[in-house]
């Protein structure tokens, strides 16, 4: 199964259709709440499925996967941050916010990869699913820490210029007031993020439900899954096309980052999945996709609240307009080939 076949998957074709719809300026609009409902459904379905399988899984491998998911989630944003700062195209605030997206993951990309593997008849482990759930949040924390560091060094610089203008006093009072946005609150937000709750909650339910109860759910979570994924990617295609329009605002260097960073993440993920966690080709491909994909659900609102100084166009254009389409159209088969060649050479 070559990369072309990927492009003939209905799900991928619907992504392209959404993209084209925007490019030809169709008035097609999906109700904004539809995307939310579809992603709740998709997370619930893969969660239930995964939990059902995981109940039979090996606890040591599961723990190992979680540890490596954390490693990926904490390391990748730091690499991304350094790379971005070195380009000198964005300020440290923007670099922190952008790189946080790359340490986190995109469930949409992950599901497209599953559709790709299913259709290619490649089997895979369920552990990457736990990794998906685990990796949603840690990168947010790294992003916050990097931004806090950047803020402090900026403040130090400002203090020299505008010492005594009362800003500091006010900020203090404000920090007081806004416990909603304090570091602790943001960490809590990161771990109680809606997607994480749906995914982990459904996994637990899938694991502990009575089998007869689960059987009644299979038509809902299996049979219509692929159709719902098509609808979801249709919508995401429109969103991506709207974002890619801001390409010029982002500049060529940043746009290149939006392609190179997932490649790097994909290679690292493939290595972790194949060489370290010892997964099959399918499973390692999924880990590669986790490394390569950038969040567009959990991280953007967190960054908006916690790093309001960063420019949202940068991170939204990169993750939605460049990295997401790149992974869906090109990345997934690429990471698969990479793992295949590892398997051959190994």
């Amino acid at each position, binding site marked *: 199964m070559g990369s072309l076949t990927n492009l003939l998957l209905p799900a991928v074709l619907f992504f392209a259709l959404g993209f084209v719809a925007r490019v030809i300026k169709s008035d097609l609009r*999906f109700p*904004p709440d539809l995307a939310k409902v579809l992603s709740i459904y998709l997370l619930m379905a893969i969660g239930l499925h995964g939990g059902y399988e995981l109940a039979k899984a090996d606890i040591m491998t599961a723990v190992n996967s979680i540890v490596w998911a954390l490693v990926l989630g904490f390391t990748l944003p730091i690499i991304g941050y350094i790379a971005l700062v070195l380009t000198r195209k964005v300020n440290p605030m923007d670099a922190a916010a952008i790189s946080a997206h790359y340490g986190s993951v995109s469930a949409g990309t992950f599901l497209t990869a599953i559709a790709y593997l299913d259709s290619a008849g490649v089997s895979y482990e369920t552990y990457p699913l736990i990794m998906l759930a685990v990796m949603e949040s840690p990168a947010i924390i790294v992003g916050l820490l990097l931004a806090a560091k950047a803020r402090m060094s900026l403040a130090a610089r400002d203090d020299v210029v505008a010492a005594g203008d009362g800003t500091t006093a006010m*900020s203090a009072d404000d920090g007081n007031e806004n416990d909603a946005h304090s570091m602790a609150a943001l960490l809590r937000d990161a771990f109680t993020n809606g997607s994480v709750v749906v995914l982990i909650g459904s996994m637990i339910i899938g694991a502990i439900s009575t089998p007869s109860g689960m059987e009644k759910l299979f038509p809902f979570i299996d049979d219509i899954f692929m159709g719902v994924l098509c609808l979801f990617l249709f919508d995401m295609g429109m969103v991506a096309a709207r974002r890619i329009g*801001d390409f010029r605002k982002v500049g060529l260097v940043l746009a290149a980052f939006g392609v190179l960073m997932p490649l790097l993440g994909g290679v690292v993920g493939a290595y972790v999945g194949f060489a370290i966690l010892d997964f099959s080709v399918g499973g390692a491909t999924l880990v590669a996709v986790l490394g390569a994909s950038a969040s567009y659900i959990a991280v*953007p*609102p967190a960054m908006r609240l916690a790093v309001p100084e960063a420019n*949202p166009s940068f991170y939204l254009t990169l993750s939605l307009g460049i990295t997401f389409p790149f992974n869906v159209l090109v990345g997934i088969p690429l990471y698969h080939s990479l793992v295949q060649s590892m398997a051959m050479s190994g």
Partner: protein
Amino acid sequence: MVALYPEKLLTIISIDSMEESLVASFKKYGISGYTVIRARGEGASGIQADMTGFDANIMVKVVLPLERLQPLLESLERKIRKGHHLTVFVADVQVITPDKFTRSLR
């Protein structure tokens, strides 16, 4: 003849995830109620198209007596200074039940 009494109407437009923090300020500085409306928009921080459920704005309305306005404005100004994108404006309105707006929430 229904009598009319002057109040201020404060309107704030921002991203929807600011709601929790705005309501916290409201409760801290004391108001009698607030109303939240889902919105889309465009401004200095780009377009908020409400296309995906995670790029929506909110428009928040608060009717309040003049004497409660300043502390709230100050808290909003601090948020703006921190980098948050808030569109804030105040208008004069008249109400028929002035007592309603001197109470405090919770």
